Every structure is written in C-alpha cells, then in structure tokens.
C-alpha cells in the first residue's frame, strides 16, 4: 500500500488527522482515472448537483434543471459540459478548480488542506467524498446537449 502511494507522482500529502484522500495524478489538464474505481451513478450525481446544501453548484451555475428555481449566474451553464470537456478534465475541475484557474471562485470539492480559517465542523473535510465526486462526474459527462455553449 505505502509503495503504491509512493509511486504516484503529484500525490496529495496527508495531514496527520486529515481525512485520507484517494490518490490522484494530474496529467495534461486532467485526472484520467476514477478516484474510487467504482463507476459513478449519474442519477445520484444529478441529485448532488441540485442539492443546495450539498453540491452548492446552483449557487453559481445554471443548468438543464427546469424544476429548480433561483440558479446562479456567476459561472458557465452546465448544459453540454460532457461535449465540451472530457471525463478527466471534468474530474480535475471537480477535485480542485484552482489547478485550472488559480483565481477561480469555484470551490475545491476534493481538497482538505491548504485552506485557511475553516469552520470547526468542516475542518480537514472535503466538500464531497470520492464516490460523490464520481457520481457528479458521471452525470456531467452525460450532459451532451451543447445548445447552451
């Protein structure tokens, strides 16, 4: 196990008490491999995206969610994401968008260190867990309609 970890380049270092993150490798602007090895469930992913206290996505993004009122307008419409970006590119943006755009406002969903003044009940925790990230990715990959681009 430790050998395998050591072999992965660009590993996220683990703080002593921090939740253990699945290792990942960033290559060519993408994280090609699944964080869990378990195929994501697009239906669960959709639920996370629209859930205001969990995904928080609709605070900033709008998307093909006719039933959802009050979608934000600070970020690109999510419709057609799967046509614009590869699965690996989406994974990198979900894990830590600052790796794509240092100044981004999009929160890092799979990062639990290098964050300042985190409230006690969120300290050293990621916004979503690895399987939830995979579920959201599976859903976004399925958004092929590109009419909103």
């Amino acid at each position, binding site marked *: 196990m430790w050998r395998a970890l050591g072999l992965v380049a660009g590993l996220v270092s683990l703080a002593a008490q921090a939740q253990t993150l699945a290792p990942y490798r960033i290559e060519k602007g993408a994280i090609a491999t699944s964080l869990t090895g378990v195929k994501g469930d697009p239906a669960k992913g959709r639920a996370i995206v629209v859930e*205001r206290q969990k995904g*928080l996505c*609709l*605070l*900033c993004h709008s998307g093909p969610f006719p039933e959802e*009122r*009050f*979608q*934000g*307008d*600070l970020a690109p419409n999510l419709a057609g994401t799967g046509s614009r970006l590869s699965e690996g590119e989406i994974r990198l943006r979900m894990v830590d968008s*600052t790796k794509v755009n240092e100044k981004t*406002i999009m*929160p*890092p969903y799979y990062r639990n260190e290098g*964050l*300042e*003044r*985190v*409230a*006690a009940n*969120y300290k050293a*925790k990621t*916004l979503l867990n690895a399987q939830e990230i995979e579920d959201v990715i599976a859903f976004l990959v399925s958004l092929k309609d590109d009419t909103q681009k």
Partner: protein
Amino acid sequence: MNRLLVILLVCVALPASAQDARKSGFAFMGPDTQAMQTDDLANPGMLSVLEGEALWNAKAGTSQKSCAACHGDAPQSMKGVATRYPAFDDTTQAPLDLAGRILQCRTERQGALAFQREGRELLALTSYVGHQSRNMTIAPSQDTRLAAARAQGAALYSTRVGQLNFSCAQCHDDNAGGHLGAAPIPQAHPTGYPLYRLEWQSLGSLQRRFRNCLSGMRAEPIPAGSADAIALELFLMDRAAGMKLETPAVRP
C-alpha cells in the same frame, strides 16, 4: 465665458462620476424593500432608533447620569459621529467601533452594567447615534494610528478562507451584481448599519453580517468587537468613503 465654465465643469465632473461605480446595498433591492427603508413609518429599524432615544435620555449606573447629561442633544452632539468610526481610542491604544465607544461610555463613565455586544439595547443606542448621521457622507478618520488595522482589514477582505475557499473580494468586487442562487450580490458597503434585515427579522450589526457571510463560506466566525472585526469594518468604511449613511437601512 459661461460656456467655457460649463465645459470646464463637465470635464471635471465626468471622470469623477464615471469612476464612481460604487453602489449601496440599497440599489440592489427591489422597490418594495427600498420603499420600506425610505418611509420612516414603515421602516422597522425606526423602532430601535426610538428605543435608543429613550436609552439616551435614561439615567443609569452608579453615576446616575444619562448619555444626554454629558452629551446633550444627540441631533446636535452626535451629528456626523458615525461617519468617522471606527476611531482610534487613546485609553486602550486600539481602534474602537461605534458600539464599542458606546459600551465604554456605559461602563466606565456611567458606571452601569455592560450591554451585550449584539444585544437589543446596544443595537438600539448605536442605531440612534448612527441615525444622527443619516444622509451624511462617510468620512473615515485620518488618524495615522489606524493605518495598521486598516491594512489588516484589507488583507482579511482579500484572503481566501473557509472550506469553500472564497475571499470577500471574489464575491463583492469580482462578482457584485451577479446572483448567488437567488440573492443579488451587493458591493458590501457598510452604509446602513445597524440595519433591519428581513431575513433576521430584527436589527443587526455589520459584524453580524460578517458572520453570515463567513458561515456561508464555512469559515470560522470573526467575533463581534474583536480586533479582526474592527479592522474589517475600518477597511470597508474607507472603501465606502464619500458614500451616504442610511442608518437604519433595511435589507432583504
């Protein structure tokens, strides 16, 4: 001659107004909420102002003196005071916000029991004093001893914090005018405090507003009256220099 003057005036006026894209939170509200603020009979914050007036005139503490006993008529003596706070306090050698100054008078000069920081009485007195500067322009204190705290406030404003990794500036400078879910993002000018917020169903301080934004960011709260809170307020008041005070404002 007159024509020349007009041209000159236009030249002077244009850059200034084109430059000032600053807007109070008032400008981001719907007409109903705006009307509620501007009509004193409908503005729920005016009830606190009235309560503050009563407290201003009430004897208290071991001195058995009222605020009025020392300061006289608030509409005269307190006019403009809120425009230049937070100020540097010589006793503590630290910046002090308006609520802090009122607390200091209460405990040290009136000899009365302290009010709670965010409690109803202190908010009422602060809104009464703040109200005496309504429609006056924010004119931050130029005391150089405030510079360090102001810089600390600027740093707090632009540092990413919390699990969501946001800075204040990312929302209030970069994304003001946009919508966070349903909420229009204002420019975070502290023009109306203490103010009545419909969501709170009560009067609240600027520092309570900080806590709201920070909890949304999943960041540690900044305690009211703390050096950090006053530093942030100093920075925001400076950023809003020249804008008009609205106390007590109404916000959604």
